[in-house]
């Protein structure tokens, strides 16, 4: 079953057409990656899916319902959760408060506690730093917190916008290990990356975005061996 179906999604900022009508699909339990150069429109696509920008045209069907143009809190409430570009943790709030906000819509404290225990078991560093403000964490820890915060929302579809951006190579490996683990647990993921080789390795299916248009799509292994992709994105 399809978790997400996007048809003809177009987004403009004033006169700049950032997305010129893209189609994409994420099947339940799959990891789909969207690769593309800086400025291709990847973040714009993620923001449109989460309701942070309104599409000019197109349909976004999530779990069978058209969510295009819904406000962000409604979309989050449906279980479409995002780890945004640049992490965007609440730097002046504590780690515990950041996690609590991830479960803002959960009214049952016992459920919130269960989710928090699971997140802290996955990221023990966050437990150690629970009462520190998020701004005092290292970049890698902040990214763990951004993941933990999104997981507190029990995502039915998890959007990851360049989770490896700005991290040291060893931490990049750690991030991709987390993504593999989430995939193994059956989490449905739409992953945006500039680190195309790592993204194509973990993904089932891939799309290539160039200046607001999908120029190539297919099973991740096929995309990874496509000569144009090798030349442009895999440093071949």
């Amino acid at each position, binding site marked *: 079953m399809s978790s997400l179906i996007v048809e003809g999604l177009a987004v403009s900022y004033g006169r700049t057409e950032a997305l010129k009508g893209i189609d994409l699909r994420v099947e339940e339990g799959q990891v789909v990656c969207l690769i593309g150069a800086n400025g291709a429109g990847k973040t714009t696509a993620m923001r449109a899916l989460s309701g942070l920008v309104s599409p000019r045209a197109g349909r976004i069907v999530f779990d069978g319902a058209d969510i295009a143009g819904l*406000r962000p809190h409604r979309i989050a409430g449906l279980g479409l959760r995002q780890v945004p570009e640049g992490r965007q943790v609440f730097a002046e709030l504590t780690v515990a408060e950041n996690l609590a906000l991830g479960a803002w819509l959960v009214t049952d404290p016992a459920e919130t506690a269960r989710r928090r225990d699971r997140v802290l078991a996955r990221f023990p560093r966050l437990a150690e730093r629970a009462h520190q403000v998020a701004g005092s964490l290292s970049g890698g820890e902040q990214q763990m917190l951004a993941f933990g915060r999104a997981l507190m929302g029990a995502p039915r579809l998890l959007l990851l916008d360049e989770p490896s951006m700005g991290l040291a190579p060893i931490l990049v490996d750690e991030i991709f290990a987390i993504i593999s683990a989430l995939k193994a647990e059956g989490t449905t993921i739409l992953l945006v990356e500039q680190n195309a080789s790592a993204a194509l390795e973990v993904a089932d299916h891939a799309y290539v975005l160039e200046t607001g248009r999908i120029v190539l799509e297919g099973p991740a292994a096929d995309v990874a061996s496509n000569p144009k992709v090798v030349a442009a994105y895999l440093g071949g």
Partner: protein
Amino acid sequence: MLGQQLANGLILGATYALFALGFTLMFGVIRVINLVYGFYFTAGAFIALYLTRNLGWPMAVAFPAAAIASGVMAIGIDGLLLTRLRRVGAPELASLMVTLGAVLALYATATALLGPDIKRFPASVIGAEAMEFAAIRITQAQVLILLATIVLVGGLLALMHGTRLGLALRAMAENPDAAGLMGIDTIRLAALVSFISGALAGAGGVLIGLNFNAIQPYMGEAMMLRGFVVIIVGGLGDIRGALIAGLLLGIVEVLTAGYIASGLKEAVAFAILVAVLWSRPAGLFGRAVTRRA
């Protein structure tokens, strides 16, 4: 003499702090400099005047009613003006101009309807009796001012730092988009902030009206100038900073009026503003890029 001056200054400063808190909360959470804010101060004073003088309500009832009515008015006016500006991502100068135009129109309308002259609460309402503590005279109105300020400020701090809603407000202050991703309805919270800040301004208007027993349509305008001094000196968006800066401003004004010349109190207030900004551009207590709401 000095003790009396300090007490008067503290009481005046408490109202400044109360007024500035709403202003800084609005800036901290919604991130707009909303010049209409001063009008809610005027509105609070006139609503309390109407309720006590025309309807004969006791001040203890008229005061909270006027604050709530000002808050409701703020939801309506801010919603009309600011929601759209924020949705289209208007530049800050646009919201400044829109709110400036709106507030001037509101003051002019209020003046046309209510008259420009100074109005006073009936003598029975203000409670002329005074108490004396260690040779310091405090009127009943001043006691009400102090109590109301302590309750409202304490309530605001408890809301911001002790409740789930306060957590959401602090998250929204820092990053509204990320707050939306958490499932927080930022438009509804913006309306709540309008209500709280409008109610604080309205409460400030009633209390200043009581303190000086003088109410006129443009009273919010003079207050806005002080509001700016307080929130800039205290650090934009900083609740504790506004509290301290408000108290200090009240004390400085009363001491200037008492020991130098009463006509100079505004000059001194603004000289302090310039000196603080010149030496510490982020405000006396503020960090450079902070929104400690």
